[in-house]
């Protein structure tokens, strides 16, 4: 089964040249190939998740290490290797990526403008995302990280939308530029951190398990923890470095928003956990109060900002900032319960926010506006769309039986153990979430039907399929979270320094 991880990264990458070979006069063929490839990724990611074995402690599963460069210059044995493996933390995130890209292909079905180029970039991005979750070599982890970020620029700038909000405008070029500059700025910090760690460890290798076996000097840990935490934190929407996210979503096309909020932001949180906390437990302990403060600020600040939004995408964008704040809170607890909750929240937020963006896209494609106040009573015209949107919203406000509750419950319990004040504020943020979600539902979907939208139709079949797929996992995790938690807890307990 070693091939499965290799294949997960290789399939989207290999689909790219296939797309290129298809003449652009066959857009339907492009879509079919994308669907086939998406399905293959989905199946493989499910396979990785299901076939995860609980034997032999918290080791790595499907370990695969291919030599790339060694014993040259400053590199010693296994200097840089193509080292792939999955553990209990990355397994749910791999599954998440498989789900979101498969759903995303169907959401992108109607893209007419240069759809070949669109899918080329989208699949490159996905290849990068799988790479980050699976790489155990810092060199390749960084490479895939950049591969996941850079296609964003073109995807937003070419296929995105500019918006005029009356008092201010946001062009798609602005959104794309800000997003990429921000994330590249974060990468610079990560890059510095990687080299500092490499030199300090003195092992001549970028292999994470080897680097993890070294005990670093306490001052070194305290100095370089922030490089990774901040560098990855930017991508995780760490307050106050979050503004690329709402503006980026508003500009981005639907499926890109789904992947971006659903999966990409998780790369940041995953990086903090996989690199910063795992390598530098003492640094983590030193900086945890700061991370907690920023996390809880983001959670509250995002929720309160979402309350004031009229644009659906801005609302969902700020709600992502808020929910990623919960993830950072969970990580900052440095407790088993809290970190389990953070990983659960990464998955839960991934599926529910992807669903929300998909539904916003379904409305926007037809109505060409996203201002929730101009709608009204849409539930009568498009009951399924309203129902799907409501399910995503209910999960995000933490309704038991849906994914968000399980995750938030763990995070709150973990936070209360270490920072009771932050836990109380977090629960308050969850209550504010209920307010903005229900306010949006009442404005846009309930009440008397606004005849202006008489032409509105129910979602396309592809959108319904994508939405149903996401809902299945939202409900599955909400009703029976054990398969997720068993895997996550299996690996979280191996992280040093957690209480």
């Amino acid at each position, binding site marked *: 089964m070693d091939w499965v991880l290799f294949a997960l990264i290789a399939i989207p990458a290999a689909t790219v040249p296939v797309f290129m070979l298809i003449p652009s006069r066959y857009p339907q063929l492009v879509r079919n190939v994308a669907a086939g490839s998406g399905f293959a990724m989905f199946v493989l990611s499910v396979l990785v998740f299901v076939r995860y074995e609980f034997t032999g402690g918290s080791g790595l599963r499907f370990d695969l290490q291919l030599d790339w460069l060694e014993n040259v210059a400053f590199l010693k044995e296994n200097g840089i290797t193509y080292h792939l493996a999955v553990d209990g933390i990355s397994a749910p995130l791999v599954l998440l990526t498989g789900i979101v890209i498969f759903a995303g292909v169907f959401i992108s079905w109607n893209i007419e403008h240069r759809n070949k180029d669109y899918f080329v970039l989208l699949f490159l991005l996905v290849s990068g995302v799988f790479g980050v979750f699976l790489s155990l070599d810092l060199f390749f982890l960084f490479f895939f990280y950049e591969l996941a970020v850079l296609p964003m620029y073109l995807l937003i700038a070419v296929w995105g939308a500019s918006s005029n909000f009356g008092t201010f405008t946001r062009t798609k070029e602005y959104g794309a530029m800000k997003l990429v500059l921000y994330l590249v700025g974060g990468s610079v910090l990560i890059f510095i951190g990687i080299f500092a760690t490499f030199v300090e460890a003195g092992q001549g290798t970028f292999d994470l398990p080897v680097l993890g076996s070294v005990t670093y000097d306490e001052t070194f840990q305290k100095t370089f923890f922030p490089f990774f935490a901040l560098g990855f934190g930017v991508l995780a929407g760490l307050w106050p470095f979050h503004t690329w996210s709402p503006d980026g979503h508003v500009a981005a096309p639907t499926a890109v928003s789904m992947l971006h909020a659903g999966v990409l932001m998780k790369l940041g949180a995953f990086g903090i956990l996989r690199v910063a906390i795992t390598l530098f437990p003492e640094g983590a302990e030193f900086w945890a109060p700061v991370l907690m403060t920023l996390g809880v600020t983001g959670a509250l600040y995002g929720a309160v900002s979402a309350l004031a939004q009229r644009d659906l995408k801005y609302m969902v964008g700020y709600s992502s900032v808020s929910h990623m704040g919960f993830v950072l809170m969970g990580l900052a607890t440095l407790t088993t319960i809290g970190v389990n909750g953070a990983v659960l929240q990464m998955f839960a937020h991934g599926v529910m926010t992807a669903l929300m963006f998909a539904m916003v896209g379904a409305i926007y494609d037809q109505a060409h506006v996203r201002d929730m106040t101009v709608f009204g009573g849409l539930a009568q015209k498009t009951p399924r769309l309203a129902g799907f949107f409501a399910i995503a919203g209910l999960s995000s406000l933490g*309704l038991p039986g849906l994914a968000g509750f399980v995750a938030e*419950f763990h995070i*709150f319990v973990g936070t209360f153990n270490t920072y009771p004040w932050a836990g109380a504020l977090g629960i308050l943020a969850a209550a504010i979430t*209920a307010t903005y979600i229900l306010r949006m539902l009442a404005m846009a979907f309930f009440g008397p039907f606004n005849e202006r939208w008489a032409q509105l139709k129910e979602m396309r079949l592809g959108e319904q399929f994508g939405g149903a797929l996401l809902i299945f996992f939202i409900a599955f995790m909400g009703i029976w979270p*054990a398969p997720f938690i068993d895997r996550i807890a299996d690996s979280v307990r191996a992280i040093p320094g957690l209480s």
Partner: protein
Amino acid sequence: MVGMEEAWLIPAIPAAAFAVLLLVGKYLPRRGDWLAIGAVAASFVLFFPVLIDLLDEVDQPGFAGVSSGIDWVKFSLPTGPDFQLRLGFHVDQLAIVMLVVVSFVALMVQVYSTGYMKGDPRYGWYFAAMSLFVASMLTLVLADNFLLLYAAWEGVGFCSYLLIGFWHERRSAAEAAKKAFVTTRIGDVGLLIGIILLWREAGTFDISEIFEFAENGGYSAEYLTTAVLFLFAGAVGKSAQFPLHVWLPDAMEGPTPVSALIHAATMVVAGVYLVARMLPLFELADPVALNVVTALGLTTVMISATMGLVATDIKQVIAYSTINSLGLMMVALGSGSVTAAMLYLFAHGFFKALLFLSAGSVIHATERQEVSQLGGLAKRMPVTAAVFALGALSMAGIVPLSGFWAKDEILNVAGDHQNFVVYGFMMLSVFITALYMVRVVILTFLGEPRDRGAQEHAHDAEPAMTVPLLLLAALTVVAGFVTFDGVGEALGFPGGFGEFVFSEEPEAFHFPLDVAVLSTVAALAGLATAFYFWSGEAEPARRAAETFRPAYETLKRKYFVDEVYQWAIDRVVLVTGGVVAWFDRNVVNDTGVDGTAGLGVFTGFGMKFLETGKLPNYALAIVTGVIVLAIVFMVVRV
């Protein structure tokens, strides 16, 4: 044989019915209403073997109920016990009382709904949502740990949201649903904090283990007081206690059977049930905790009873009477009596459902619900009028209806455990309750019809709606007698209601004549006053409203509570949101982010002037640099 171990089946059957109805409901004959009714009937039937099993074991010394369940989440921690969340169910006497109320009233309401909701375009969805509600409510009753309790608690709140907003085309219904959910959610913030605080010290969510931990002095008194007061916040929201009572009158936007089941007999008493279950913790905490319960309960009683006096919508009046009842139960708990609260809860479930369902028959027949458009319906709808009056008199506490026994028990414990101010207000509330309950009977059923159009086709409803009314009416008459030891023993219980609910320290039913006489006098006085005020042209009532205009206005405008909240939402919450969003765009982004970016652009712009391409400029720079460096070195060296 189904026993207490299999009690999980009781909520599981309606839950399964919900799943089936949600997925394939529209392909079923009659949209699957029979499935929903069959499921709740099965739950009701299963109650009996569970009860018999309990009665077998209840005599054993130290019996504290039977738990069963499976792990939902479990992982080990580096230190201390495993982190464990269970789907665990627990049957004891308290749960049994709630089970029978919930499953029986739900069955009656579902049958009634087949008539009331006939022809609604979302008929199938209605039964699906009701099934989900029943499943959640039964889970709440049976939960043996706080996680499942909280999950079910949110679940019933969500079903309430769905069903209040059932006719969501109406703006008012959509708004009422939102208001109900958000208001109760505010209380739930407290509930969740309380639960986690209890867990933090005890390391478990299991309710009986937490009791044990508390009894062994695991919590300090201050800590426990804080925790139980947070828990109580949840009960305040769900049971519509002051100051979070505002959602319940608005919740009447939902279909009337929904009001009967959710907003009278079951969900709203969940708060009372929670406090009743947690009473051992309240008693271990500082007395301040129970005093808070009493104070809020009494405030709730007084404001709801007075608002009921001026409400003009038949459902609103009953809604206020429900808040009134919930306040009474809280006062009973504040006085430390689970028995009194649960007896009232038991009796209340039947007579309040009866009131709502018979009001529903009126609305169904006349399509009016303002009392100013009703009147004189007793001739057209004699059965409905009779059962409604029966419910109203029970609420008013007229002997020998069930409400009388239950209310007397509460007055009793209030008299024993509270000071005379509380007791005095309670007696006053008996008078006011009789006043407004009889008022609504008079205005709806007696006198002359005020809107003839509404009356033309009015008649008693079909059997599907009338039979549940009659069954509930019968229970309204007899349910109170379970307080007597003789009745309890005849039914196979160890004794009367108090003996059964509290097997360890039986609270025998006591019946001091002075309380009974006093309360009966108060109730009859209320009844007589109501007839004086509102019979005929209701001239005295009009004059009273004129004379006490400011008081009347205050009641009409619900003590301005809604207005204060609306002001706070518009002027504080939304404004804060706007300010934060503005800050984010203008300060964080346009100044912080774009400013930083602008600084780079500006610096680059400035630097480009240095690059002139003229040799003399560069030579000058080099010479200047050498001179400056030379000076620096001289200064530093010497």
